C-alpha cells in the first residue's frame, strides 16, 4: 500500500482570480507585502497495491485523466509505503 500526496498547480500563465481576491482581502486587513498568491489543490489518497511501478502508473492515470485538466494545470506527487 502506498500513500500518495499530489500537488495540483495552475500553469503560471493562467490567471488565478481566487489568489487575486485573497490578496485584495489581505490589503484590507493591513497585510501589505503579499504578492503572487496562487491557490492550488492538494490531494491525498491511498493506492492499495504493493507493486511500486503499478502504483505510480495508477497515480499518473488518476492525475492525468481525472484530477487535473492538462489545459490548465500541472501536477507533482510524492508516494511512500504505508
Amino acid at each position: 500500500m502506498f500513500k500518495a500526496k499530489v500537488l495540483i498547480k495552475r500553469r503560471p500563465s493562467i490567471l488565478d482570480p481566487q489568489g487575486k481576491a485573497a490578496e485584495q482581502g489581505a490589503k484590507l486587513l493591513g497585510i501589505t507585502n503579499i504578492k503572487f498568491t496562487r491557490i492550488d489543490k492538494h490531494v491525498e489518497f491511498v493506492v492499495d497495491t504493493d507493486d511500486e511501478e503499478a502504483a505510480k502508473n495508477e497515480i499518473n492515470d488518476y492525475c492525468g485523466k481525472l484530477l487535473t485538466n492538462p489545459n490548465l494545470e500541472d501536477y507533482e506527487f510524492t508516494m511512500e509505503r504505508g
Partner: protein
Amino acid sequence: MKKPKFGVVVFPGSNCDYDAYYSLKKVLGYDVSFLWHKDTDLQNSDAIILPGGFSYGDYLRTGAIARFSPIMEKVVAFAENGGVVIGICNGFQILLEAGLLPGVMLKNKSLKFVCKDVYLKVESDKSIFTNTLENKNVLRIPVAHGDGNYFADEATLNSLTENDQIIFKYSDENGVEHEEANPNGSLLNIAGIVNTKRNVLGMMPHPERCCSGILGNTDGALIFNSVAKSLFN
C-alpha cells in the same frame, strides 16, 4: 416538415433540463426525450442537448465528473459520427472536459456569478446552429454562470479563428465587441464555439430560457429552429 427529436441529458445536478424540455416540446413543438445519465440509449434522438446546471456539484472542476457518465460514452460516439450536440452553460463545460471542444472555462474574471441578458454577435452563420437565424446577426440571450471565462492557448485560439469555429461573441446590442460587453473575461469575447466538423456547439448563454413570446424574448428559439431546419432540409 418532419419533426426532429431532441434528447435532453439529465445529470445529477442538472437544473436547466426541464427548461430545455419545456421550450423544445411545449413552445416549439418538437419531440423531446429526457436521457438519464446512467442510461446508454440515446432513444433515436436527432440532436442531443447537454443542459445547464451544476452536474455532480461542480466537484473537482465544472463538468469534470459528468463526462464519465455512461450516457456520455454514447454522446461522444454520436458526436464523432456527425450527430448534432449542443452543450449549454454547464453542458459547454462538459463538452470541454470531454474533449469534444477545445479549451477550458475559468472562474469569471469578476469572481462573481453573473446572471443577466447579454448580446451575442453571430460571428459565423456557417453552422447548422446559425444558418437560418431569420437575418438576425445580434441575439439577446441570458447568461447565468460563475465559470464562463473561456481560456485556450494562443495556438488553439488561432485555429478557432482560422477555421471559423467561433460562432457567438459577446458584444453590445449593435454587434460591436468590447470589454464592457464581455460578462466574464472570455478570451476574444468567446460565447460559443463549434468543433472542426461543425456538428457540436458549446455556448454559455441559455437559448432555452428565451423561446417563449410571453417571456418577452424569443431569440433562443432561432437557434433551435435553425438546427431543426438544417436537420431535415
